[in-house]
């Protein structure tokens, strides 16, 4: 702990990054549409998007639905346990819901198949594979990339109201349209010798030293 603080006092970070430098990011997409693994430094997060046709919410009959769920795999860190919900999961879930659902970046009306009867429900499953700091950014990146990678099967609505879902071989699948792309940036604040230092993309050791940190989510048109 003290070594991190003394490094900051000297104007450096313990892993030789600049204060506002982000770790290397790489995105790997799977063979199936909607699967993306993000590597942010050593943090690894997997996001998988699947879709199914369901009945819409009665209050919003021509809007699709999107549900996001975050899982912390026991492989992510030795103290994680599968099945038990904890504060970190709630925090990550809240960040993702705010960024993706509340920002209305996805056009839910485009997910409607037949008003009041069938709409697409997109389900985003985010699994944290390795916790090396800054899970908020990694989860956000993974979910957004997976959503943009996801293509939904084409549907035809017959005159009598029947809905046929075409397989990927029959008809070209349709990509998901995102009006704005939410970008999440997490900072850690260190108060050292009465001066406040701002570090971007904290690693796990830095996170443990500081308390909960704020993150800013921004999209092209407005900030949230």
């Amino acid at each position, binding site marked *: 702990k003290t070594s991190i603080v003394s490094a900051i006092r000297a104007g450096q970070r313990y892993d030789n990054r600049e204060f506002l430098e982000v770790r290397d990011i790489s995105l790997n997409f799977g063979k199936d549409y909607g*699967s993306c693994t993000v590597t942010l430094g050593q943090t690894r997060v997997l996001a998988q998007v699947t879709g199914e046709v369901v009945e819409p919410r009665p209050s919003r009959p021509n809007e699709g639905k999107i549900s996001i769920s975050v899982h912390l795999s026991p*492989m992510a860190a*030795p103290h994680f346990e*599968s099945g038990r919900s904890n504060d970190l999961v709630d925090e990550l879930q809240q960040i993702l819901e705010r960024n993706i659902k509340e920002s209305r970046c996805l056009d839910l009306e485009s997910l409607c198949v037949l008003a009041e009867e069938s709409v697409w429900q997109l*389900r985003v499953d985010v699994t944290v*594979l390795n916790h090396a700091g800054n899970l908020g950014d990694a989860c956000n990146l993974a979910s957004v990339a997976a959503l943009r990678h996801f293509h939904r099967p084409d549907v035809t609505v017959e005159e009598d109201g029947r809905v046929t879902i075409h397989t990927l071989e029959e008809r070209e699948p349709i990509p998901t349209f995102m009006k704005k792309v939410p970008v999440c940036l997490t900072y850690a604040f260190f108060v050292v010798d009465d001066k406040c230092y701002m570090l971007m993309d904290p690693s796990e050791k830095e996170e443990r030293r500081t308390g909960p940190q704020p993150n800013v989510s921004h999209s092209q048109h407005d900030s949230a």
Partner: protein
Amino acid sequence: MSKHACELNFLSRSDGSALYSIGNTVALASVNGPGEVKKFNRLYNRAYLEVSYSPSTGQSMIGERALESVITRTVEQVILVHLHPRTAVNVTIQEMQSDGLELSTSVNAACLSLLDAGVQMKSTFAAVTCCLTPSSTILIEPTAAEMKESVAVATFVLDGQALNVLSAHQEGCLNAENFNACLKACQTAAKDVFNFYRQALEKKYHTCNEIS
């Protein structure tokens, strides 16, 4: 036989990990241990082995629990559990991509991650899946589409020393003659899998030697 690929030490926070793929099926296994065990699970004379399997989407249900129990019973036979009493070895498997070969990919990933973590074992183990088509040909490591058309699917987990069967999982109708033919085919294929393990570990230790 489909192409095997593997990346060791994929996760920095696990004692050992392996990202393993057979064809288009990919599984990530992570091993932590031997380490702390909950009082409830503490065994006085051996280590407690816990395997958990997560699918890529949705909740973990009965199918996943069944897979977990097959993998646990297989791995228990091989790990030298009596060397570490009152500890726990946790194996966590995450399905990354699925094309029908979940069981064999998970088992192989588990073996390589145990080797990566340095957990002591009696021998290595490898799983090979084969299916019997209606025209009585045996296909090794079929795709999901090929499995759908087949009469029966069998997965054998074989040990690295004498290619004995550690566990067998079979669905469909197989007479004794076909069962033995499948077993022989899997044993031959398993030799290639063990060679692949050797190459993967040689690569890992080669790069370690280069650094030091």
